[in-house]
């Protein structure tokens, strides 16, 4: 008995054990309760449509949702199989595209003597900071034309007179392009990071053995970065698979549904049970992808830890191709990073869409007062609109609160997991913290919706607290990953030497460990800020009303046709994100495109 007591006491004598237990319990509660709620929702009758449809009591158990969704008739084709296939194609396509673009740029930046590297590098990551759907919006603004849809003229037609076919403007093709482009900076950062840290001697020894440049890329470089490429592919794949906003913008016009948009549509139409089944399937697929990823990276672990003295990397001389390639790269990055901003600025000041004459311009959508903007349906221009300011305020507050929670938790999880590395407890916490990554934002929002609408947790619905909760759990994975990685870089002796001096745990954290990993820990705080500032899918079901947050407000503007306000708010969000990024960069050196680049 005393032995047991002693062991328990010894166990909790270590702060890392306390932390792990606390996080274990919290994470189990925050991911298991919702998951169980969702599971039970797959088998119950909901108020409204389902009650009407099946003539059953609300809350009674049934298999009808499964029967209906998988019946094999038109209904299940339209509501499940076709969206599933679409999601799959979009995910694969954008994964490949993201890697091709990101990888190519990464190679040019780290391994060649391309011009204007730092410009390309910092502008290239831009699309990743913007909400993904802004690029979708930009795409339609650009390419819509008189031959497709309603015949509204986009910029390309009005400037060059070219009409793109429908498949180019709406549907799977542009979805792949937009999602692929959006995540290509992600591929760029990951692959570039490895290329940059890869020991140059690996390539140099091949050069000495008289291998040509191309052979080296093919036989040395690519195989070494291959695990990174694959895991990047899987990450983009799962992001693409679960993307919600982009399919809404590019698919609605041609009735192209993906699983995410279908899930939402079903829930909206009152078919919650079937919606939750789809959410569950997306989660299972997410787990599967992570499984594949871990199996793969686990198998080839030795490759990914290629580090080395990364001395002088001999840059490939592009010679005559340098200038043309640089110009192409610059044009490419500018087109997808800067031009959208210009186009949003433009769209936010024109009265009649498609007409860019000076007489058609007005600043009413920004600073108009009651009288002048009456026709547009809002009380005043967005800069004078109290609703907008309170939505912005809430969003920023949400971002900051979530960043505090997520950043701190990520760091503490990192600390505790590294301290107790190898124990089952630490593994459990680490994978639980990563688990939310597998859940598509839409499904995640759906799950929390299920919880918040259940009798026991009704008090959560429509509150700021639930937004904080959902965002904190959802954005924890990257923070805990970066926490673990940064703590792994600190030798345990660093902390132990302070222990010997009797330094209390909190002081050890604040004076020794955090200052050492300052920049990587700060990016653990920065990332959630960015994510919250551009997130829609996660919040859209949970906000009490659309204008509660800036992003959901914007999304509803764009959906309902306040396109000028939409563009103005988009621009505002992007500006806020850029300001936050630059501010953090200036103050701390942490930034989005940190660690790689010219």
């Amino acid at each position: 008995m005393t032995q047991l007591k002693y062991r328990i006491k010894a166990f909790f004598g270590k702060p890392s054990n306390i932390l792990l237990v606390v996080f274990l319990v919290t994470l189990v509660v925050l991911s298991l309760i919702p998951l169980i709620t969702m599971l039970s929702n797959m088998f119950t009758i909901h108020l409204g449509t389902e009650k009407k449809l099946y003539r059953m009591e609300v809350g009674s158990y049934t298999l009808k949702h499964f029967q209906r969704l998988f019946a094999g008739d038109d209904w299940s084709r339209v509501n499940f199989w076709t969206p599933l296939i679409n999601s799959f194609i979009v995910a694969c396509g954008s994964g490949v595209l993201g890697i091709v673009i990101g990888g190519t740029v990464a190679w040019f930046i780290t391994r060649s003597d391309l011009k204007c590297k730092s410009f390309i590098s910092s502008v290239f990551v831009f699309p990743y900071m913007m909400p993904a759907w802004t690029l979708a919006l930009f795409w339609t603004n650009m390419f819509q034309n008189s031959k497709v849809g309603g015949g509204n003229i986009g910029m390309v037609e009005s400037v060059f007179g070219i009409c793109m076919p429908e498949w180019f403007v709406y549907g799977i093709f542009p979805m792949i392009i937009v999602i692929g482009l959006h995540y290509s900076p992600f591929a760029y950062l990951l692959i570039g990071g490895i290329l940059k840290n890869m020991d140059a001697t690996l390539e140099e020894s091949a050069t000495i053995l008289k291998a040509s440049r191309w052979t080296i890329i093919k036989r040395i470089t690519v195989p070494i970065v291959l695990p990174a490429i694959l895991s990047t592919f899987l990450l983009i794949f799962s992001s693409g698979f679960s993307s919600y906003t982009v399919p809404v913008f590019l698919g609605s016009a041609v009735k192209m549904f993906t699983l995410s948009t279908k899930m939402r549509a079903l829930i909206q139409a009152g078919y919650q049970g079937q919606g939750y089944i789809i959410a569950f399937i997306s989660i299972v697929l997410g787990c599967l992808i992570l499984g594949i990823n871990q199996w793969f990276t686990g198998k080839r672990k030795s490759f990914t830890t290629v580090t080395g003295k990364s001395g002088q990397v001999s840059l490939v001389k592009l010679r005559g191709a340098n200038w043309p390639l640089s110009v192409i790269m610059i044009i490419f990055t500018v087109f997808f990073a800067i031009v959208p901003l210009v186009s949003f600025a433009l769209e936010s000041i024109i009265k009649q869409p498609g007409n860019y004459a000076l007489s058609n311009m007005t600043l009413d959508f920004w600073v108009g007062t009651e009288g002048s903007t009456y026709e547009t349906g809002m009380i005043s221009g967005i800069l004078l609109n109290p609703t907008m300011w309170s939505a912005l305020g809430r969003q920023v507050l949400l971002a900051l609160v979530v960043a505090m929670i997520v950043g701190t938790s990520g760091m503490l999880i990192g600390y505790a997991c590294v301290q107790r590395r190898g124990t089952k407890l630490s593994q459990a916490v680490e994978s639980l913290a990563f688990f939310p990554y597998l859940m598509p934002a839409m499904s995640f929002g759906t799950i929390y919706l299920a919880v918040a609408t259940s009798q026991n947790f009704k008090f959560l619905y429509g509150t700021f607290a639930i937004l904080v909760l959902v965002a904190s759990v959802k954005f924890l994975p990257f923070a805990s990953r970066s926490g673990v990685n940064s703590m792994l870089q600190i030798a345990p002796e660093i902390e132990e030497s302070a222990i010997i001096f009797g330094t209390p745990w909190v002081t050890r954290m604040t004076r020794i460990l955090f200052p050492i990993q300052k920049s990587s820990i700060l990016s653990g705080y920065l990332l959630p800020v960015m994510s919250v500032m551009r997130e829609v899918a996660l919040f859209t079901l949970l906000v009490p009303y659309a204008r509660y947050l800036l992003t959901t407000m914007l999304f509803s503007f764009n959906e309902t046709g306040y396109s000028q306000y939409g563009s103005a708010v988009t621009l505002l969000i992007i500006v806020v994100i850029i300001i936050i990024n630059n501010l953090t960069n200036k103050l701390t050196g942490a930034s989005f495109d940190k660690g790689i680049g010219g």
Partner: protein
Amino acid sequence: MKRVLSVLVVLMLVLSVSAIAMAETVEEALQAAASMSNEELYEKAKEEIAAGGQVNFYSTTSFAEKAASNFMNDYPELNGKVVYAEIDDGETYTILPSTIGSGVKDAVDMALIQNGPDLKTYLLDEGLSYSYFPEAMKDVVDEHNQEPPVITFINSLLIYHNGNGSINLNNIWQLTEPEWNGKVFFKDPTKETVNLNFLMMLTSPEWSDRLAKAYEDFYGTPFQSKEFKNAGYAWIDGFLKNVNYTYTSASKIATGIASGNPGNLGLFVFSKLRKVDEADRGNLTVVQFENEVDGFSGFMYPVYATVAYDTECPYTCALFINYLLTEAGFGGEKSWNSNQGYYSPNKTILKPEDLEDEPYEYWSTRLVFEDLDYIDENYADAYEFIAVRVG
């Protein structure tokens, strides 16, 4: 965390207990309010506000924001206490049943929402909200518009781009012909329930008969089909085949058609014409203003007022509903009545002379209205039939 949670739980319990205790009083208060004068209500409302109350007012129509501010101008002691929030139609019945009774500060007290069948099943039947209608108005509003109380009607009309001259649409079956493929714009009915209700109503005996008659007028042969249960289903099938879903909202359909290709036609909310830039507005023609259409020339749906069972301010809500039913509330400065496409159930309120529009009575015979009971009965069949065709 744990402490916060337990505090929250206790808070929730307290609130729900007090909500139950208050539930009767809200219902009773509304009953009492129905026979009070506005002055009496104002006194009561002032008491509620003085006790720390506030009306969180949700609406799917944006003019309500203006109406609320006009209301507070007229009743200055309520200033700032009616807090407006716009709510998306698609979210209405996810959000309201969840927030009402939650005790959350931002939770809804009163709402103006569309889609009667859902209002009935999600809120009224569940006892989550109440209807309120003042005695004084019973003479000027038709009885079927009193329970639940209609604040405004909104119509969706057939409107087209007249760049190629008239499209000569005089029978609704024309729109099922292949020549209209991709040229008819309509908001995804699975996303906006009023559109869905409209289509469902076409399958009702009344409307399928009218469509069968129009069918015979148009094709010269009586309607007969093995595939479809009645003419309503047949028309929906033919119509949805032609629909182009490029635009995701009524405003987008309006501006999109106006600036798009000539000859395109939309079935969308009439009032959204105000969103179209002046330079393009001349491009649009309302079919009904050109000629009568055999069948129908659009549909009309009500926006209802409903009061949450746990509001702290039933009298303020009642006063506000009274206000919305009067000329001052409905036709106040820059609110519904000064626009095309909004109609008060109060028959004494007429559309302004200078507006190209007709009163409620004119439309009531030419448009499809939703019938709560019919939709409730036939939801399953009709919904799946439509949803599968939408994609």
